[in-house]
């Protein structure tokens, strides 16, 4: 493609150069033809002017005087001057008075020339002036017609020699000059052409008979030998003489041919060099790309530690460098992904382990009905709730660790372990949380804290002792006829204590509450009002309370109320990720006043 483009450019450039060269040659040869024609005209003008006083002298004395002979000496080229007069006896012109530098010179000339006289005479009467070299050498004749009022015109014949002038026509070279007549006869020129008709060898158009003589011009012709020639011509201005210059196009455009050859040579060298360099460069690039290709193959096999050697600072080198970075990054990401997968697996294990920390979501202890719900914001959470029956008491736990995620989950695990032990010791809620506080503080060193609420409910007397460690106060709905309203909510907030883990020696107080048959308790963490919808708008306390009241008022059992409540916030949530862990449970003392509490409590999963 580049070679073709270069060739096209070369062809156009050569064409332009050739046209320019042709124009230059035309211009040059035309100037030379005009110059030579001008020189000849000047010579002839001078010769003719020299004869004017001689003719005046002749008219006065009817013969050439000594003054005329003196004038003749002024011009070296003028040899003779003869007056041809009409001879009625012969019916033709005869030689009259003669003025000459050499005795009998004209007579000798006339003896040879008189046979060509008549044709010259015909031309004379047509053209007024005839200039010719009858013997195709440097001797020229100029015949002028002088009209006379009486009788036939006189003919003035000038015989002169143009040796120096004729020499410049004789040289046969690349550019030839010819002095020709209108009929094409070559008067001066290279020796081989003398006497021939120019039209026989060069079909020039300016000599066409129907064209007016005179002027100058150029033309391109193809000669009989199928050689293209550039021809320029210029009229001498005397008689029907023309100076013609011809040069073969091959000679004229020799420089173009040289340029063409050199250009072709240069083009070949250039293309060759370019091809060699391209092969070298492509080989280098191919080698680098092959290495890259092999490296990608290694990566596809899972060998991410592959590295390509960077051998250049060009784009391919940059590509190799970027490949190495990419491979390193992929390798790092693979390790990271593996690590993440491992951590994910561990979190999944932690989630499963944490699930064991929670009790079954539903339980019945005699008339006591419990239903709970828990959902962590991530794999594991910081909320915890539980219930345990120890003898006639049911311990009700709910807690929320600072933050959520793995750190919070660990502390809840520790809390659960400690709580399990504390329950068996029969501690009151205040003492239980005080002990738990020490345990959490020792584990977390004040970095993680937990809000907690612990209620210890006697399922025979319905007396409940509770201790709140800065947790959301549970709701108490006293048994009543008719639906619950917001104003019916009582809060288990008669004591409030520091969060667990806040200070090792914190002291905790507790409150005793007497529940009645039909009373209902609702425990929750702050994740409930913080449930978000897709617009990241929190559910809020108002809607939370409203949803809870609706659920309680429309559901006969705590299990159904919990399900209804779950539906209400799931509608709001629309699958949005939780902002915080979500925990709540309902404890209801069923209105079965006469029911005996047995040891056959049911716990459902």
């Amino acid at each position, binding site marked *: 493609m580049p070679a073709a483009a270069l060739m096209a450019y070369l062809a156009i450039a050569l064409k332009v150069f050739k046209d320019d060269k042709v124009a230059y040659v035309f211009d040059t040869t035309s100037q030379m033809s005009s110059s030579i024609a001008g020189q000849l005209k000047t010579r002839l003008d001078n010769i003719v002017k020299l004869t004017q006083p001689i003719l005046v002298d002749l008219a006065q004395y009817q013969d050439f005087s000594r003054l005329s002979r003196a004038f003749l000496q002024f011009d070296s080229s003028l040899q003779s001057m003869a007056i041809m007069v009409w001879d009625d006896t012969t019916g033709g012109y005869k030689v009259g008075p003669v003025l000459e530098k050499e005795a009998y010179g004209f007579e000798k000339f006339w003896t040879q020339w008189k046979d060509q006289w008549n044709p010259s005479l015909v031309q004379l009467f047509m053209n007024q002036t005839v200039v010719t070299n009858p013997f195709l050498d440097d001797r020229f004749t100029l015949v002028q017609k002088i009209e006379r009022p009486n009788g036939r015109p006189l003919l003035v014949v000038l015989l002169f020699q143009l040796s120096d002038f004729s020499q410049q026509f004789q040289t046969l070279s690349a550019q030839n000059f010819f002095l020709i007549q209108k009929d094409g006869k070559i008067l001066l020129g290279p020796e081989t052409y003398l006497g021939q008709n120019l039209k026989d060898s060069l079909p020039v158009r300016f000599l066409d008979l129907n064209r007016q003589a005179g002027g100058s011009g150029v033309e391109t012709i193809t000669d009989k030998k199928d050689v293209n020639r550039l021809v320029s011509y210029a009229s001498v201005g005397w008689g029907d003489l023309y100076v013609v210059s011809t040069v073969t196009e091959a000679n004229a455009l020799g420089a173009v041919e040289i340029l063409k050859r050199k250009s072709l040579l240069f083009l070949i060298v250039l293309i060759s060099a370019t091809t060699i360099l391209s092969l070298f460069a492509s080989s280098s690039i191919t080698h680098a790309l092959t290495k890259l290709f092999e490296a990608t193959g290694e990566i596809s096999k899972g060998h991410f530690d592959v590295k390509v050697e960077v051998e250049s600072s060009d784009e391919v080198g940059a590509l190799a460098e970027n490949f190495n970075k990419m491979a390193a990054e992929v390798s790092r990401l693979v390790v990271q992904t593996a690590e993440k997968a491992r951590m994910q697996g561990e979190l999944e294990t932690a989630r499963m382990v944490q699930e064991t920390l929670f009790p079954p979501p539903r339980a019945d202890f005699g008339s006591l009905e419990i239903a709970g719900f828990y959902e962590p914001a991530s794999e594991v959470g910081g909320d915890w709730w539980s219930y345990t029956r120890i003898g006639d008491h049911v311990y009700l736990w709910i807690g*929320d*660790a*600072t*933050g959520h995620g793995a750190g919070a989950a660990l502390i809840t695990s520790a809390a659960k372990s400690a709580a399990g032990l504390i329950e068996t010791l029969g501690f009151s809620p205040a003492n239980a949380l005080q002990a738990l506080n020490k345990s959490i503080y020792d584990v977390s060193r004040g970095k993680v*804290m937990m*809000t907690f609420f612990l209620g210890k409910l006697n399922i025979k007397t319905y007396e409940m002792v509770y201790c709140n*460690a*800065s*947790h*959301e*106060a549970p709701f108490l709905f006293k048994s009543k006829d008719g639906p619950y309203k*917001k104003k019916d*909510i*009582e*809060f288990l*907030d008669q004591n*409030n*204590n*520091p*969060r667990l883990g*806040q200070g090792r020696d914190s002291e905790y107080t507790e409150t005793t509450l007497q529940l009645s048959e039909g009373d209902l308790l609702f425990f929750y963490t*702050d994740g409930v009002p913080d449930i978000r919808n897709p617009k990241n708008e929190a559910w809020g*306390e*108002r809607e939370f*309370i409203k949803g809870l009241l609706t659920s309680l008022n429309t559901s006969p059992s705590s299990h159904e109320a919990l399900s209804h409540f779950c539906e209400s916030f799931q509608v709001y949530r629309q699958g949005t990720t939780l902002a*915080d862990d979500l925990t709540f449970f309902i404890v209801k003392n069923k209105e079965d006043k006469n029911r005996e509490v047995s040891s056959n409590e049911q716990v459902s999963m």
Partner: protein
Amino acid sequence: MSKFQCKVDRQGQKLTLQLGGIIDEDADFAPLALQGAQEVQIDLDAIKSINSCGIREWIKWIGANSTAKVVYAKCPKVIVDQMNMVDGFLPAFAKVESFYVPYYHEDSGSEKNILFRYGVEFKEGQIQPPTEVKDESGNPMEMDIIESKYFKFIKAKV
């Protein structure tokens, strides 16, 4: 999310703090040392939310105070909720100068926060809410809180 911001104005022994944004584990209370001030006013008007980690940081910060008389002003609901729930959030040496009470109109859904000021709408153990709060359409609004829970820190029954 707007980060925790604080503007401090110290004039002699009176320190005025204007807090805003979110109080969470990233909230830095270190530059807000209360030492040396005898009177500290904390303007909480621009607080957007506070999480459990933020509560921990708050209690550590405010609990470090030993001498200054601290006043909470323009407490939004998120702060009042913590004052009621978390022991130590409103320590004994701190008083509430003013706090917001949310009101709403059930049918129109309009909401408004009314600033309750000490000595006007409340004082120790007593609440004197405005006799009537109306929205821009003239609808009577009711408190958007559970009063027994929300005013607990005043230790009063309305």
